[in-house]
C-alpha cells in the first residue's frame, strides 16, 4: 500500500477549494468501507484521502414540506433506523436495512453508498487492466461472469452494487453536488451514466465534485414502496438482483409506478417497459409477473449468468406486490 496523506477539512468550502487547486490523485472518503478496500488491493494509489466525515453538518436527516433531505455523511445505519423514513419511505428504509452488515452500516455513509465502485472481480484485481481501468477489454464478457450484468453490458459488464441508489431513484430523488464553481442539483437518475458515456466511472461527477446531500420528494397520497433484494447468502451480501418499486395506487389500480433494479446492469437499471405494462392495471400476481416478463425480454445474459434473468423476474414481481400491499 502506497503511503498517502490525510485531509481533515473543517468545512465543505475547504474541500472544494482544495480540489480546485489539487493536482495529485485526491480521493474523497465517507466511511471508507469501499475506498479502503480499493487502496488495500492496490487498484488505486491516492496521494491524498479527504475525510468528509470531518466536515461539520454533513450528517443529518431533515423533514420539511418539500420532503426529506439526507446529508451525504449520514450513516447508513441512521437512515435505516429513522422512524419517519420507515413510515413514509418504506422502500428506502428496507434498502438501507439490508446494506452490507451492521458494522458496515455504522461506518458507511449515504453519499459513499451512492458513489461506491462496482465489485467485479476483474475490476477489483490490481493486476487486471480492464476497460474500466484504462485497458482495452472487458474480461468478464468472455470470462467468469456469474455475477455480472444481464442488461446494459458492452464495454463493461459489471453491476452497480448500491442498494440505496435504486430505492432513491424510484423515489425521484435529487442529489446536491458542491464544487469550486458552486452547487448544483441533479436528478439521481441522471447522476449515473452507462459505460458508453465514460467506461472509467459510473457517474457524471468530475474530480472536483462533492456529493453534499440527497433530496427525496414528499410522498403523495397513495404512494407505497418496497425493496426486495436477492442475495446468494442469507445476509451480508451484495444483491444478485434487487428491485425498488414506488407505486401510486388509486383504489386498487396502479396510477403510477417506478421500478429500478440493482445488481443487473453497470448502473441502476430503470424498467420503463415494466412500468408501462403496469400503469392503469389492477394489482395482481399475473399483472406483476407479466410486467416482469416484459422487462426480462431486454435481457442479454452472458455464458454463466442466465440464471439471473429468472431471479430478476421473480424479484421484480415480488417487489411490485410487496409495494402494493403497503
Amino acid at each position, binding site marked *: *500500500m502506497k*503511503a*498517502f*496523506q*490525510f*485531509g*481533515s*477539512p*473543517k*468545512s465543505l*468550502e*475547504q*474541500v472544494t*477549494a*482544495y480540489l480546485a*487547486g*489539487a*493536482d*495529485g490523485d485526491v480521493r474523497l*472518503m465517507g466511511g*471508507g*468501507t469501499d475506498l*479502503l*478496500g480499493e*487502496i*488495500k488491493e492496490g487498484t488505486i494509489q491516492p496521494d*491524498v*484521502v*479527504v*475525510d468528509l*466525515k*470531518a466536515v461539520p453538518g454533513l450528517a443529518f436527516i431533515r423533514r420539511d414540506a418539500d420532503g426529506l433531505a439526507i446529508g451525504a455523511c449520514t450513516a447508513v*445505519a441512521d437512515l435505516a433506523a429513522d422512524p419517519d423514513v420507515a413510515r413514509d419511505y418504506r422502500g428506502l428504509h428496507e434498502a438501507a436495512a439490508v446494506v*452490507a*452488515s*451492521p*458494522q*458496515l452500516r*455504522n*461506518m458507511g455513509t449515504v453519499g459513499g453508498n451512492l458513489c461506491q465502485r462496482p465489485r467485479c472481480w476483474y475490476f477489483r484485481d490490481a493486476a487486471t487492466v480492464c476497460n474500466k481501468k484504462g485497458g482495452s477489454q472487458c474480461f468478464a464478457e468472455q470470462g467468469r461472469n456469474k455475477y455480472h450484468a444481464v442488461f446494459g453490458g458492452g464495454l463493461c459488464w459489471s453491476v452497480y452494487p448500491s442498494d440505496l441508489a435504486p430505492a432513491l431513484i424510484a423515489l425521484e430523488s435529487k442529489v446536491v453536488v458542491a464544487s469550486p464553481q458552486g452547487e448544483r442539483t441533479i436528478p439521481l437518475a441522471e447522476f449515473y451514466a452507462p459505460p458508453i458515456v465514460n467506461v472509467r466511472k459510473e457517474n457524471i461527477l468530475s474530480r472536483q465534485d462533492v456529493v453534499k446531500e440527497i433530496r427525496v420528494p414528499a410522498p403523495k397520497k397513495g404512494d407505497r414502496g418496497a425493496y426486495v433484494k436477492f442475495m446468494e447468502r*442469507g*445476509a*451480508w451480501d451484495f444483491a444478485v438482483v434487487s428491485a425498488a418499486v414506488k407505486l401510486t395506487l388509486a383504489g386498487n389500480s396502479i396510477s403510477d409506478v417506478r421500478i429500478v433494479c440493482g445488481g443487473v446492469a453497470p448502473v441502476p437499471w430503470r424498467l420503463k417497459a415494466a412500468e408501462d405494462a403496469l400503469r392503469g392495471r389492477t394489482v395482481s400476481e399475473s399483472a406483476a409477473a407479466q410486467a416482469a416478463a416484459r422487462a426480462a425480454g431486454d435481457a442479454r445474459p452472458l455464458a454463466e449468468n442466465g440464471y439471473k434473468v429468472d431471479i430478476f423476474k421473480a424479484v421484480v414481481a415480488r417487489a411490485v406486490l410487496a409495494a402494493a400491499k403497503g
Partner: protein
Amino acid sequence: MDTPRKKKKAVSRRAFLQTMGGGAVGAGVVSRVLGKEMPALQAGPGPMDVVSSKTISLTVNGRKVKVAAEAGETLLQVLREKLQLTGAKRVCNRGECGGCTVLVGGKPVYACHTLALQIDGAEILTVEGLAEGDKLHPVQQAFIDKDGYQCGFCTPGFIMASVGLLKKNPQPTFDEIRAGVSGNLCRCGNYQKIYAAVGAAAETMRRG
C-alpha cells in the same frame, strides 16, 4: 501543487517529526505550534489540514491515550501494535469477517477498515474493556456458559458485535440476533451456540 499546499505540507512534516520524537509531550507542542503559526485558519475557511501522520487522542476502555498514527494506519493496527490490545483480531483485513469488531462511540465497527486518523477523539471499547475486575461481562459469561465458541479466534469480534447489538436492542428476537451478528464469520460454524449465547446474555442483562 500550489504554494499554500506546499506550506501546509512543510508544517505537517515538522509536526510528524515532533510527534514521533516527543510522544505525548510532542503532541501538545504540535497543537501549540499549529495554533500559533496559523491564526488565520480560525477566522476564514483557509486551507484544509493535510498531514502524513498525526497524534490522535482516543479514550480506549475508559483510559485516555495519545498515539501517533500514520495516515494509512488502521484502528486495528493502533490497538494491536501500539496499545498492545490484541483482543481484536486481524483476520481478513478487508472489512468482511468481523474478527476485529470493536465499538466506536458505542457502535460496532470493523477496526481493520477504519482509519485511525478518522476517529481522532473517539471512545473505543474493545473486548479487554468489558470485564469489571474478575467479573466477566454478561455476554462473555454467556459465551462460556453456552459454548459460544470452538477455536475462539472469532469470539472477541462476535462478543463485541453482540454487546453492540444488545446496547441498541436489549430484547432481540432470534432473527434479530442472527441479523445483529451477521457481520461476523465463524469458520468453525458454531452459529447456533453463538445465537444461544447472545439470547442468554440478553436474558441475564434484562434481569440485571
